[in-house]
């Protein structure tokens, strides 16, 4: 894709009651970037991701998407959490179709394509409730990609994935470089070995470390 999207986070702050969760976060990213965010529990990683998704309002600072405030109606954000965020009583296929229709972008071929990518095509008629936790996480990846996202946020995406699942996720990272900005928070940076990525270390609501790893 020729046109690159730009995400600018400037002096982002988040206050909850008297607790300052994010004190002063600034960074930038453009299409093609993979940002890996690490930090101890309570460093504000998930809060940061939820603000970027538009799910949580910020208390101060700026989050700009191509120069404009990023909000919930952005519409092209893929969000993968450590929870699968799926409907247990609907089938694999119905889940994806529902989200596809909500985004209004893609049809049946895309559903098939994504299910084949995450290796769930043969399970498409099963209820989500009967799938294992690892399979649900794979489906969650497919669900996030249904948005045809330009910004993908991963919150501990390797949780409960098996070796195959991890390999699929690494493929996703590579495949989406040309059209999205990707941010991943993780406890286990070793899973990113062999990928080119930028690194952001968070602690106590501040950026304490910046780095770059080239494969």
């Amino acid at each position, binding site marked *: 894709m020729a046109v690159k999207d730009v995400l600018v986070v400037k002096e982002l702050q988040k206050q909850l009651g008297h607790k300052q969760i994010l004190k002063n976060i600034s960074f930038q990213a453009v299409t093609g970037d993979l940002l890996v965010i690490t930090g101890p529990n309570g460093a504000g990683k998930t809060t940061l991701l939820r603000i970027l998704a538009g799910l949580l309002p910020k208390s101060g600072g700026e989050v700009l998407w191509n120069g404009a405030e990023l909000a*919930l109606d952005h519409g092209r954000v893929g969000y993968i959490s450590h929870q699968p965020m799926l409907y247990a009583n609907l089938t694999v296929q119905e889940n994806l179709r529902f989200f596809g229709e909500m985004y209004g972008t893609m049809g049946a071929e895309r559903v098939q394509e994504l299910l084949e990518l995450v290796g769930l095509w043969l399970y498409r008629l099963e209820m989500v409730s009967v799938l294992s936790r690892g399979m649900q996480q794979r489906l969650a990846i497919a669900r996030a990609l249904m*948005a045809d996202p330009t910004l993908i946020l991963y919150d501990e995406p390797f949780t409960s994935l098996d070796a195959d699942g991890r390999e699929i996720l690494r493929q996703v990272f590579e495949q989406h470089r040309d059209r999205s900005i990707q941010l991943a928070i993780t406890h286990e940076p070793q899973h990113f070995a062999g990928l080119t990525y930028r690194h952001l270390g968070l602690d106590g609501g501040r950026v304490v470390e910046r780095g770059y790893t080239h494969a």
Partner: protein
Amino acid sequence: MPKFWRKVFLIYLKDLKDEFRTTDHLLSTLVFGTMLVFVFSFALQLVEIGTAQVFPAVLWVSIFFMAILALQRSFAKEQDNGALDALLLASGDRSILFYAKFLFSLTVLLLLEVVVVPLLWIFIDVAGAKANLWFFLGAVFLGSWGLAAVGTLLNGITVQLPGARLLFPILLFPILIPLLLGAILCTQGALVGEIKAVSGWMYLLVIYDLLFTILPLLLFDYVLEG
């Protein structure tokens, strides 16, 4: 705007599909409502006041209790494994969720009433000679509309407080007072066939319904903010 309503409709359909796939909750609510109607009519029959006079009161008290169970479902199904976040991202507007859940709650409530209301009619032995059926149905519909709207709004509040399920009826009751008043009087007027005298209450119901259907546009962003 058409995009708005398209998304509302999609979520509505998804919820209906979800609800009818595991009917245990719907069925237990229905059984609960039926039992309420039975217990009320039976108790009133014992003290020999089982006449059309008490029908409106019993009807709305039964619907109110049944609604407490039925309306708690609307947001609960989004809570299971964090689906609410995914849904919010996909809808891009929190009010879309309100209207989808409101329509869902209204549908479920009306479906339950289709069984419970005729049952009560039979149990209490209402003499329907003078009754104005259309006015009666209108009152039931507008009453259910308001119940569904307020219930959805407040369910959005209580669903975020795990372990505080009991708060739902407590929050619901004082807000519903004007609705209960209007609905009961309209029902009574419809039964005795004097709709002219109570038509003003129909307007009250309409105003109440409109108010609590539009108010969430302003408030719902704050409800689902977390």
